[in-house]
């Protein structure tokens, strides 16, 4: 019984540790290289930021399928804004900052729209955000005339590969190893969301609305406001994630940016032990889920496995995670 609880409660973490050990045992030094470990955290930081927001939405009893398309739309806005502002004579860093704020605002508005229809239109979140999935991608494509939008402001990419120097570590050439901003933002957002979920009034309302919306309403909670807020927060985080994507690539391919992010984010949330039924979940689990998925794709590259297998492996991991979760329900 105790063993089963440990597995159901910390299954994802145990799996991550297990894969870690396997990697250390088979790849040793290569794997433990500080650059490689850093890459693990930063590689999917954009998906990670979105997954953290998705965790809140799912705990509140919702779902958002539109985040991938929204990433492309917000990303297009970032690049267009940066180019426009910089060409109007503004300093590059100010232009980047303003463009980022713009993208976050656009994301928040898109999320608000999703939330509004879900909360007040009483349409199933699945359907509403399926509409967003189609619609936001279409807006992105219109903005990019169906193709890629390139940034003409090189400091944008400097931001993408910038970060804080990790102390006491030098790379092969003797230079500092940077801990990327994207990873710092991912970790910071996760910590903030974790605190918000567990220690604030709003966090408690999110759980209450997801666990039993009618009981929440009868407890004098404005459930519509809570629903509206979680989708808006997720939208803003998607905007933030789109800045990370745009900065890393120095461009946004409007047809390909953010593709399948919704699936990756939901997968990370589920693997992390958050119930798709809502009312129960944890941010740290989602972070573990993101890292687990990243590590898996990392391993597929490192072991020279045909990358076409990647989808199957992910699928199996998701299914196993859900099966373990179901076991947890029967325990209670």
């Amino acid at each position, binding site marked *: 019984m105790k063993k089963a609880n440990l597995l159901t409660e910390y299954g994802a973490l145990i799996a991550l540790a297990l894969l870690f050990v396997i990697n250390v045992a088979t790849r040793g030094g290569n794997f433990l290289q500080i650059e490689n470990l850093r890459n693990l955290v930063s590689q999917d930081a954009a998906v990670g930021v979105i997954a953290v927001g998705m965790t809140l939405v799912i705990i509140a009893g919702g779902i958002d399928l539109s985040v991938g398309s929204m990433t492309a739309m917000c990303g297009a806005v970032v690049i267009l804004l940066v180019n426009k502002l910089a060409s109007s004579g503004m300093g590059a860093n100010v232009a980047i900052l303003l463009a980022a704020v713009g993208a976050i605002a656009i994301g928040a508005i898109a999320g608000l729209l999703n939330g509004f229809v879900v909360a007040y239109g009483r349409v199933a979140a699945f359907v509403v955000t399926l509409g967003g999935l189609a619609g936001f991608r279409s807006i992105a494509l219109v903005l990019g005339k169906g193709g890629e939008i390139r940034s003409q402001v090189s400091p944008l990419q400097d931001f993408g590969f910038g970060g804080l120097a990790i102390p006491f570590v030098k790379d092969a050439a003797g230079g500092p190893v940077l801990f990327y901003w994207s990873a710092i933002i991912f970790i910071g957002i996760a910590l903030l969301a974790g605190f918000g979920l567990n220690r*604030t*009034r709003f966090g*408690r309302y999110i759980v209450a609305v997801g666990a*039993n919306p009618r009981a929440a*309403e*009868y407890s*004098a*909670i404005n459930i519509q406001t809570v629903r509206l807020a979680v989708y808006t927060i997720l939208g803003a985080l998607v905007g933030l994630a789109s800045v990370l994507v745009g900065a890393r690539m120095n461009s946004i391919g409007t047809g390909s940016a953010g593709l399948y992010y919704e699936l990756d984010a939901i997968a990370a949330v589920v693997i992390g032990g958050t119930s798709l039924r809502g009312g*129960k979940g944890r941010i740290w689990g989602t972070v573990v889920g993101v890292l687990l998925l990243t590590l898996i794709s990392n391993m597929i590259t490192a072991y020279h496995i045909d990358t076409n297998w990647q989808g199957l492996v992910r699928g199996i991991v998701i299914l196993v995670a859900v099966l373990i979760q179901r076991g947890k329900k029967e325990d*209670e």
Partner: protein
Amino acid sequence: MEFPAVRALDGVSIAFEAGEVHGIVGENGAGKSTLMKILSGVQHATSGSILLNGQQVTLHGVRGALKLGIAMIHQELNLVDELTVAENVFLGREVTKGGLLNRAQMIEETDGILKQTHASFSATTKVGTLSIAGKQIVEIAKAVAVDASILIMDEPTAVLSEPEAESLFELIGKLKQRGTTVLYISHRLAEVCAICDRITVLRDGSWITTVEAKKANPVELAGLMVGRPITDFYPPKAPVPVSKPVLEVENVCGASLSVRAGEILGLAGLVGAGRTELAEAIIGTRPMDGGHVLVNGKKCQIRSPKEAKKHGIAYVSEDRKGLGLHLSLNVIENITMANLRSYGDVVLSRQGERSSAETWKKDLDIRAGDLEAAVSNISGGNQQKISIAKWLETKPKAIILDEPTRGVDVGAKREMYNLIQRLAAEGLACIVISSELPEIIGLCHRAVVMREGKIMGELKDEELSEEAVMRLAAGVHAA
């Protein structure tokens, strides 16, 4: 003449004769529905036997009962709206010809039955387009189509208008002539006396009497249905201090009432009388239909429980598991749920929440070992205390307790009565919704009786008796 006979419930025997309309009356929880469930094959009797035409039979589920000619028409109609009348009538026993549906025959047979009922629709009408009364006729047609010899009707007129009820009675008369036995369950005593041949009264799961309908009258029946001695189960009532009304309800969904500080007002009536609906309109989860609510004499706008809370009105739902509590959350989280702002505008004080929960635990004697355990693992009585604590947290002026002792064991019931008395003594205006008559009589200073969404009357002091409440609740007047 053959006597289809049925023996059931607590060593009690009731014999139903062929071609009779047999009324079955009793309070909520008197055992009517259990009896009917056993007879229609939904439930198995733990002891005793059912004899049909003198032969012992075993009912294997609803289908088994149907095979033996016993059909039940439920309060909630079991029809498929998307299908036609004929398709519903023959659902599950379709007539086929060479593996294909024989529509023509099914429609013809159904029309034949409908003709006898003066139905205004035909076999090919979609059931979804029919009125409730029409659907009831379809249900009856279903029973006739299988040649049921025993037809059980549970509150058939509850949803019908006067003329619709009249045509139902006419149909029952016709069935009776065909030799069908009709078991007729209803709270409408006048109606039962008018259309039945004999009437059986149940109380507390046992048989009280079976009387000839011709010799029975509604007032006498109401007396037979209750008539249980009130023991000192209830704490003595404290006098209500003279004060102005705290909560006044004016014409909300057509109902008006008021309650003073320190007063316990009972809201009596049968299940479905509209009491919960009235309470929900007061707290804003249902439209008020033009009425309004006054707190301490001031008109309030209430459109949600949140606004009700703001004006000091608390509602403890009868549906503890669905509306009253978050079962997956722990005791502390549930107790502070409606009053979280007191523990922090943004960041919550865990310490504050815990000590507050500890205080309520001691004060209301909530027996929960671990305050961080999910409330789903806690007994009904203690869950009820938690949902009351949740609302006392908000320091309300008036509290509406909907069936506060439902699903609570006897010991916990008594505690609940003491608690309600105490709340009133502390100056809270209390409204207690209860379907249990002794509770209304024993606990409340005053009672308002509802029936079909309307307030039928108000009883206080010596007028407050179980019979008087039952008469109002069932809509009969003392001769």
